[in-house]
């Protein structure tokens, strides 16, 4: 188990270094910091001084190590667009996106998992077929359509929920949360529901297929031949065999929402990372884009790491494949 964990962590670090290097190449090769920082009438000497100060005369590898060293000390560089530290920009936007992602994950688990199990256990029931029909819509409708539909119904027609913003935000010092106020919960519901539409539909279909396949297997037949109750067979013996792909998918989806909820955030004017990313692309704000890239890599790698460390707890065969 220790070996397994160590090898996963080392792999994660290597991948993060590779991502950082690509992001660094982006910063190093696109845009001209000298043009931005020097005045138009600067002398050649001033120019050379600045080059030495920024370390631009150093070889690529030295500059990369410098870049990594700065990041480890919390120095992520400055935005070309606003001149603010990139770290501040991201820290300001992060809570909104993370909260949105977790609430939509919660909806996915609470709605998708029970419905998926129901469809897997009763694939031919009327209600099961009905759920499958609805889930087809969930898979095929694009996010922004779902978002606009929800706004049209719940905000415009019924006037029940707000269509934009985060509601009242409570500042905890290190984190600005919208989850401690009623208006915050009301505001987060529509965007979170929009994001979870696809996930719910996806989890339902995946669980159903997995359960139907496991249900045919010889060990489930043997469990029946031993007189175990149907409830025990499905909810313990079969479900446990479907958990690996399900938590893998949930983890990837969580990463996806944190990193790429650009469209949904835009529809609901949600002040999260997605909107920051969009603004940075429009302003060719290379340092922010680069750091964002590394951040996205970090999010995926950490989620993936957690998921992989969960594997052996569910299926001990994972450890054997390792050795």
């Amino acid at each position, binding site marked *: 188990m220790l070996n397994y964990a160590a090898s996963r962590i080392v792999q994660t670090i290597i991948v993060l270094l590779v991502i950082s290097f690509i992001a660094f190449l982006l910063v190093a090769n696109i845009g001209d910091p000298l043009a931005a920082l020097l005045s138009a009438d600067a002398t050649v000497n001033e120019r050379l001084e600045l080059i030495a100060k920024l370390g631009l005369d150093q070889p690529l590898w030295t500059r990369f190590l410098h870049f990594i060293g700065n990041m480890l000390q919390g120095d992520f560089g400055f935005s070309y667009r606003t001149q603010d530290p990139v770290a501040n920009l991201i820290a300001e936007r992060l809570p909104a996106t993370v909260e949105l992602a977790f609430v939509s994950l919660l909806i996915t688990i609470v709605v998708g998992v029970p419905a998926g199990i129901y469809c897997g256990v009763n694939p031919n029931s009327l209600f099961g077929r009905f759920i499958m029909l609805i889930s087809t819509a969930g898979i095929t409708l694009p996010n922004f359509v779902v978002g606009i539909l929800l706004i049209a119904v719940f905000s415009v027609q019924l006037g029940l929920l707000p269509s934009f913003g985060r509601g009242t935000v409570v500042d905890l010092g290190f984190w600005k949360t919208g989850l401690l106020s009623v208006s915050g919960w009301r505001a987060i519901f529509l965007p979170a529901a929009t994001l979870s539409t696809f996930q719910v539909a996806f989890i339902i279909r995946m669980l159903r297929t997995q359960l139907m396949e496991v249900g045919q*297997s*010889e*060990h*489930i*037949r*043997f*469990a*029946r*031949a*031993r*007189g*175990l*109750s149907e409830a*025990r067979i499905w909810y*313990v*013996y079969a479900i*446990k*065999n479907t958990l690996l792909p399900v938590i893998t998918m949930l983890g990837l989806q969580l990463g996806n929402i944190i990193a790429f909820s650009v469209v949904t955030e835009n529809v609901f004017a949600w002040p999260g990372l997605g909107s920051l990313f969009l603004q940075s692309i429009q302003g060719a704000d290379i340092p922010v884009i680069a750091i964002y890239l590394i951040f996205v890599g970090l999010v995926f790698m950490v989620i993936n790491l957690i998921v992989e460390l969960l594997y052996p707890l*569910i*299926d*001990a*065969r994972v450890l*054997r494949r390792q050795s």
Partner: protein
Amino acid sequence: MINAATPLLDVRDLTVTINRDGRLVTALDKVSFFVNPGEVLGIVGESGAGKSITGAAIIDLLVPPLKRTGGTITLAGERLDQLSPKAMRGVRGGKIGFVFQDPMTSLNPVITIGQQLCDTIQAHLRLGGSLTKKRALDWLDRVGLPNPDVQFKRYPHQLSGGMRQRVVIALALCADPALVIADEPTTALDVSVQAHILELLRDLHRESNVSMMLITHDLGVIAKMADRVAVLYAGRVAEIGPAGELFNAPKHPYTRGLIRATPMPSATGEMRLDQIPGAMPGLGAVPPGCAFNPRCFRAEGDCRATIPPLYHEESSAFSCFHPLERVTA
């Protein structure tokens, strides 16, 4: 020998059909046999003769589109074919244990051996948690696994094939069933392991006096284990009789063909091997009359016209119009 008048399991006219695109095909055609208390009944036949279907039909575990469409199954006076699904669950594992063929696929890969045993015991016997665990450990010991405490916490993938089959046997027997149906219990195993598993089954049978239905295509296994033998051919019973009688003086030409097709050294040490010409008809392709008639050297007009009934003698029965004489060598 126990009195044959009160069999533990009595199967009469068991019929199983398969629905193939709306066409009903008979997979098992009025199969009748019984198993006495404490007896081992061998069920033998080629692949596709309906051996496994017979076993699965008894505990109502046929895989669709196979379906039981007729006949009666009586276990210790109780009609199994009329039980509700819930009552049937009590029979499975509780009164009839089932040993599956392939230990590599029949154990749940993500649940410990101990948990699988405890769940099975708890489904049938009302014991407390600690007694259940003690019983599970006892069974691991009884089927010959070293260090039951260690095995209890292990997963199937941590055991060898032979060890897994021992676990499968423990799972089938742990709730004290009166009858065990073993469906090709050694077919998926190494030859060296096969002998150990057979020995284990025989020992457990002697200790507990449980009745057994041993389904196999291997006449060698039958000769070692069975008291009586039922020979199945194309979904019908060809012959049933005490093992010794059936091996030494088969009545049905198919039985003799099967015996002669099994490699066995004769007294002089030479190997004889005669194969039966042709192949067994597949599902839905059974010829009219006796199913064996196209391959039979004694077949005559009546064999091709009508299905021969089971002719009963004192301890045996056969389905043939022109049986072999008892004295034929």
